[in-house]
């Protein structure tokens, strides 16, 4: 911290001059050190075990997340590393690195059938030969009938078969992701805190560039903080197989274009209020607007026979180009003696017709010594998007938009978890966190046709997450 870079007030300058004058008049030698003091890089540091506002320190957080979905679906391993460097005067630099490896099976969007179903999809790389099969888990390379004007090597596809009465899943799902974020914030003049951040994330078929800036102001003897954050994101999707034409039949051909993009702009207006010494309240309003390619390029929706309910075809899904959302978030942190309670409520609504409600409760309980445990529970419920359908009926007019992605459908989700932490000393903490997430929804809609009445159409997931982390504060 450099005192001389702070915007010194009028009174401070005068007191400094007055004192220096007194000492200069009576001492000589010692008075000269005033300028030396203010020129010093860091005349004041803080002792090793003190970490917090007004203290220069750094924090490293390293964690490993293991995610496993039920029924042999997706498995993910995600190491993360975060570094925060705090200067005593409130300046702060944050760096984050995330890598993950995801593999497994994902529902492809089609409904189950009383008969086995075949699906064809493009090979991962355009013009690939058989070397890709290792990644495709249970699928085979097929030769497509040559289409006019296409070179022979590109005419390869991948086919997989789903047994009868089974939710269709593509087992060829495998991806790697790397992401990095950087952020800077600091007090500036009369502004309590101002900052910017950037992020970049890359998967094999997707990349995202994010940017944000925030400004926050403390009032009322620092008991009230108002923060405005602006977020921007630019994503580009380059799916394997190209961008399919929406609501056309699934095929193994490579499609054009091969890339589409999406932009997102939003803001969050937040109010943090210290209600009492033991009660902190936060209130956020967020607004987001997304525009561009929002489809899942691998996802299809079944066309079913109007009488039997048998799938006759699989069409690529389609979602509106624009999505506008708003949410309200209210959080309370209560320090009740040995336990710290966190209660959060959120309401969300968007232009796709989804509204959701979230309630979250966690209780951090000291176990004496350096141990603590923090059980948590979350309840979430959403309504379906206007264009969500489990399937489309053959022979009827196709809607403009349609998706069977259960994340756009109506469901209820509950999460139960617990974190157990242990402080090794004043500087280091290890923690392990386990969570169980379960989605439930209506798998038997009343208007199901034919064989679909016997199928569970709900493709929601149950998953377990284990999180192990280590935090280290140092100077």
């Amino acid at each position, binding site marked *: *911290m450099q*005192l001389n870079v*702070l*915007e*010194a*007030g*009028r*009174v*401070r300058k*005068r*007191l*400094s001059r*007055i*004192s*220096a*004058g*007194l*000492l200069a*008049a*009576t*001492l*000589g*030698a*010692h*008075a000269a*050190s*005033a*300028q*030396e*003091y*203010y020129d*010093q890089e*860091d*005349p*004041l*540091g*803080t*002792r090793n*075990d*003190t970490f917090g506002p*007004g203290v220069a320190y750094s924090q490293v957080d390293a964690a490993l997340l293991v995610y496993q979905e039920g029924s042999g679906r997706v498995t993910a391993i995600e190491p993360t590393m975060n570094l925060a460097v705090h200067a005593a005067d409130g300046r702060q630099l944050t760096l984050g690195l995330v890598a993950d490896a995801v593999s497994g099976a994902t529902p492809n969007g089609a409904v189950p059938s009383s008969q086995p179903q075949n699906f064809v999809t493009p090979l991962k790389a355009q013009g690939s030969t058989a070397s890709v099969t290792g990644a495709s888990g249970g699928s085979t390379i097929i030769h497509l009938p040559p289409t006019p004007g296409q070179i022979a090597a590109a005419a390869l596809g991948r086919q997989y078969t789903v047994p009868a009465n089974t939710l269709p899943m593509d087992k060829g799902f495998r991806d790697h992701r790397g992401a990095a974020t950087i952020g800077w914030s600091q007090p500036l003049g009369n502004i309590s805190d101002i900052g910017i951040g950037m992020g970049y994330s890359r998967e094999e078929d997707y990349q995202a560039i994010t940017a944000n800036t925030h400004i926050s102001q403390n009032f009322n*003897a*620092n008991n009230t903080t108002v923060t405005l954050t602006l977020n921007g994101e630019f994503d580009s999707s380059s799916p394997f197989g190209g961008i399919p034409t929406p609501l056309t039949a699934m095929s193994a051909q490579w499609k054009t274009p091969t890339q589409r993009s999406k932009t997102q702009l939003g803001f969050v207006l937040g109010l943090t209020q210290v209600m009492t010494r033991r009660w902190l309240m936060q209130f956020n309003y967020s607004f987001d607007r997304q525009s561009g390619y929002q489809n899942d390029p691998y996802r299809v929706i079944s066309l079913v026979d109007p009488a039997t309910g048998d799938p006759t075809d699989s069409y690529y899904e389609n979602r509106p180009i624009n999505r506008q959302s708003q949410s309200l978030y209210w959080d309370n942190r209560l320090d009740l003696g040995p336990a710290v309670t966190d209660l959060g409520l959120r309401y969300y609504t968007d232009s796709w017709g989804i509204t959701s409600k979230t309630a979250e409760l966690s209780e951090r309980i000291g176990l004496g010594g350096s141990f603590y445990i923090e059980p948590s529970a979350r309840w979430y419920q959403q309504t379906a998007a206007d264009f969500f359908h489990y399937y489309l009926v053959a022979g009827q007019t196709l809607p403009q938009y349609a998706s069977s992605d259960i994340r756009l459908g109506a469901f209820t989700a509950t999460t139960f978890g617990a974190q157990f932490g242990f402080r090794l000393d004043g500087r280091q903490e290890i923690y392990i966190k386990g969570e169980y997430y379960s989605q439930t929804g209506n798998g038997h809609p009343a208007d199901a046709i034919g064989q679909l009445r016997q199928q569970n159409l709900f493709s929601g997931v149950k998953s377990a997450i284990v999180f192990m982390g280590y935090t280290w504060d140092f100077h």
Partner: protein
Amino acid sequence: MATAVETGARITRIERDFHIAFHAMATPCEVRVETDDAAQAAAIAAVAEGEARRIEHKFSRYRADSVIGKINASGGARIIVDGETASLLDCADACYETSGGMFDITSGVLRRAWRFDGSDNVPAAERVRSLMPLIGWHKVSWRAPALVLPPGMELDLGGIAKEYAVDRVLASVMAITGAPVLVNFGGDLCVSGPRRNGDAWNVAIETVDGEGQMACMLQLMQGALATSGDARRFLLRDGRRYSHILCPHTGWPVESPPRSVTVAAASCVEAGITATLAMLQGTGAEAFLEREGIRAWCIR
């Protein structure tokens, strides 16, 4: 191991330092010197204690033979003061002006009405009002080296003298040794610079509640720290806490000052008057410190 020297200071070897401890200015005084030379430590103890006692003697308002004692007993007569006293009065004058009259060395007479002993002894408004005519530095005629103090008024340099002594003692010690030194008079302290190996000096800020409990630990490389506020000096009546920080404009305690303000500055005098001024802002202490860009720690 304690060695008695003729000054009466206790000198103890603790790790890499000699700790010199004595009692002056109604407060425990400590000088830490990073040296291996015991003879030098004894010489430093003599100089440090000598300088502290000289300043105590000269500016104590309790001593009739002190400069302040003589001024307070002058009965309105014109007094010519020495150069050092003139410098301190000039400093007090400048502080008075800068603070808009909040820092006032004539406000000590309020002690006749207020005794901060933790009791519920809140004085009658009439009693406080009767003292107000005796307060106000602007009523004093001061043009160095001549001072005329209206009869009945009193000067009290208590708000500067201890911090001034810390700065003076440090300078006196630095004049005879190049060894790293820390001077601490009852929590107002100043260092000569970093320790020999470049380390900082560790300084604890005490909590206001528990005796000897530590609220925060600071590392001081250079400059000074001073703390204003004392949890044990207050009055409590009808559930209301009266702080011992008296507003010279009203004669009454300022509204809800922090229980403790610690300020970092180049010199102990600067840190001390800044801390006092912050306390005088009452509820606005933190806002004042923030606005002025002052490095400070407040406990409420």
